C-alpha cells in the first residue's frame, strides 16, 4: 500500500513513550496535496502520532515514511533534508523564548536560505502577516497570548515553504470566525503550493471544511477506529463510537 509519491505514510506503526506503546497497528497513506485530520479524545496519542509521522520520535514498531523516506533508518544528511522540507507546529507552540516573533520566523530562514537579510525580513513579515501578526512582530513570546503564539508557530512552520506541514491543534484559543480564517489559510496554502497538511483538531465543522481524510484514534482498542473522508464519518454504518464522536462533536 505504500506508494512512493505518498507524502506521509505508515505501516503497522506503533507509537508511545519510552517503551510504553499507546497506539499500534496504524497504517495509512496520505497523497501529496491532501489534508489529513487526526481526531480522538484528549490524551489518546494524537500529538504522539504527529511526532512519529514528522520524524521527531522513532517508532516503537512498524515504520513511518515522510516524503518517501523512512526517517528512522535514513542517514543524517537525508534526515535533515527531509526535516527541512517539513514544518511543525507544536501543541505548545514552542517558540524560542529569547527571540522576538520576527526573529523566531527568521531563524530557520537565516540558517537555511542564502538570501540577504532584507529579503529574509520581507519574507518573515509576510508570513507573520498571513497569520495576522503584522502588529506583534517585535514582541517576545512571553508578551503574547496563547492563540497568538500558536499563530506565530504556524508562521515559523511555514518559514521555508515546506512541502508538508504538521499542525498540532492550530485553532486552539481562536474564536470560530478566526478559526474559519485559519481554515482558509490552510486551504489556500494547499491550493497555491500544493502543501500537504496533517493536523490535529477538535473542531468537527472545521475538519469537515478542510480535511480530505480523517483518522480517528480509539483509546479503548489502542488503534485507529476509522480512516476515510470526514464526511463519511457522519454517515451511518461507521463504528458507533466514531459516529458518536463526530455527530455529537464532543469537545474535551
Amino acid at each position, binding site marked *: 500500500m505504500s506508494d512512493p509519491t505518498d507524502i506521509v505514510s505508515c505501516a503497522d506503526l506503533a507509537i508511545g*513513550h*519510552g517503551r510504553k506503546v499507546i497506539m499500534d497497528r496504524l497504517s495509512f497513506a496520505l497523497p501529496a496535496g491532501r489534508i489529513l485530520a487526526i481526531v480522538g479524545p*484528549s*490524551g489518546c496519542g494524537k500529538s504522539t502520532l504527529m511526532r512519529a509521522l514528522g520524524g*521527531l520520535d522513532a517508532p516503537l514498531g512498524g515504520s513511518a515514511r515522510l516524503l518517501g523516506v523512512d526517517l528512522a533508518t535514513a542517514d543524517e544528511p537525508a*534526515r*535533515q*533534508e*527531509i*526535516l*527541512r522540507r*517539513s514544518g*511543525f507546529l*507544536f*501543541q*505548545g507552540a*514552542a*517558540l*524560542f*523564548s529569547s527571540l522576538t516573533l520576527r526573529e523566531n520566523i527568521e531563524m*530557520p*530562514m537565516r*540558517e537555511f*536560505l*542564502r*538570501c*540577504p537579510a532584507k*529579503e529574509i525580513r520581507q*519574507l518573515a*513579515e*509576510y*508570513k507573520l*502577516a*498571513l*497569520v*495576522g501578526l*503584522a502588529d506583534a512582530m517585535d514582541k517576545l513570546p512571553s508578551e503574547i*497570548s*496563547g*492563540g*497568538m503564539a500558536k*499563530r506565530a508557530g504556524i508562521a*515559523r512552520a*511555514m518559514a*521555508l*515553504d515546506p512541502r508538508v506541514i504538521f499542525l498540532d491543534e492550530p485553532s*486552539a*484559543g*481562536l*474564536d470560530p*470566525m*478566526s478559526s474559519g*480564517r*485559519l481554515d*482558509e*489559510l490552510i486551504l*489556500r496554502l494547499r*491550493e*497555491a*503550493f500544493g502543501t500537504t497538511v496533517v493536523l490535529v483538531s477538535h473542531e468537527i465543522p472545521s475538519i469537515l471544511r478542510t480535511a480530505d481524510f480523517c483518522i480517528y484514534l480509539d483509546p479503548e482498542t489502542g488503534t485507529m477506529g476509522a480512516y476515510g473522508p470526514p464526511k463519511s464519518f457522519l454517515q451511518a454504518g461507521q463504528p458507533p463510537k466514531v459516529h458518536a464522536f463526530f455527530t455529537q462533536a464532543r469537545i474535551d
Partner: protein
Amino acid sequence: MSQPPSGSPFARTEVRADGHAVVTIGGVWNLDDPLPSVVIRGDRVRVVSEGLGDFDSSLPAWLHAHGKNIREFDLSALPPRLQSLVRMAEKAAYQETGDEKPGLLEQFGTWGVESGSSWARAFEHIGHTSLGFARMLIGRAKVNWADFSLQLQTAGVDALPIVALLGFLTGLIMAYVGLIQLRQVGATVYVANLVSLAMTREMGALMTGVIACGRTSTAFASQLGSMNVSQETDALRALGIQPVEYLALPRILAVTLMVPLLAVFATFVGVFGGMVVACAGDLSIEQYLTQAVRAISFKSFLVGVIKSVAFGFIAAWAGCYRGSVAKRSALGVGEAATSAAVLGITLIVVADALFAVIFNLFNL
C-alpha cells in the same frame, strides 16, 4: 519580448501618462535566489505579469512588502492564486477566545518516565558533542555563534570579580596555614614557593573549575532544561538542526576557552593574596616575589593550563548534558541545575586526581 518561464525573477516599473505606475513581474521566483529590487513610485499601481513561471512564497512576500505603503495596489491582472496569497496577508486579523493554554498537567503529566541507563546517555552526549565539533570544523554544523559571544561574556568576563575574590582568599589561606608550619622549622621564606607552586599547578585551575560549575553549569542546565520544557529543542530538531550543535557547542567552546584565562588570572591573584599574608611580618616583598618567580617553572604553568582546559570543558559539558536530559517540568529543570553542579564538581575532582597520577608518570 515575453520572457521564458525559466528565467530569474525580474520586476520593472514604468509610469504611464495618466499617472498610473505599472509594475511588471515575471520569471521564476525562488526563496533561494536573489530577488529584484525596484522602487515603486505613485499611489496607484497596477501589477501585471509577463512570462511568470513557478513561484514560492518569495513572490507574495515581495508583493506584500512593496505594496504595503501604496494606496491602490491593483493585483487584478495577476493569476488568482497569487492574488489570494497576497490578500490573505492584508486581511488576516484574528480574534481570540479566552487564553486557552494547555494545562500544565496535560502537557507534563507523565513525562517523567525515563530509563535509568544514564551513563550510556552521558557517553552518547559526549559522542554527539565530539561529532558536532568535527562537523563544525568541516563547516557542516549549524552553530549559534551569537550564543558563543554571549557566553564569552557571561561565563568568562562576568566571572572575573568572583574568581578574583576566591583566588585571593585561597592564596591568603594557603600562606597563612603554610607559615604556621614553616615558622617551626624557620623556613618561612619558602611560603612563597608553596603558594605560587600550588596556585599554578593546582588551586588556580581547581578553584576556577569549581566556580564554573557553580555559575556556568547550573546556568546551562537550566537554560537547556527549560528549552526542553517549552519544546524549543524539539522545534530545532523539527527544522533539522541538532540541538547539541546549535546550543551546546557554542557554550562548551566559550567556556573551554575562558576557564584557562580565568585560571591564569586566579593564579596571579592568589600569589598576590599569599604575599599580603607573608609580607605582613615574615618576608619582604622582594624576597617573596623572587622566591615565587623562581618556583614557577614553565612546566607547572603548562600543567595548570592543561588542567583548566579540561575543567572548563567538564563544567560546560556537565551543564549542557544535564540540561538536555532534564525532565520536562519546572521541577526537572531545578534538578538538572543541581545535578549539573554536582556532576561537574565530582568529575573535576576525579579528573584532577587522574591528572596527578598522569603528570607524575610523565614527570611533569
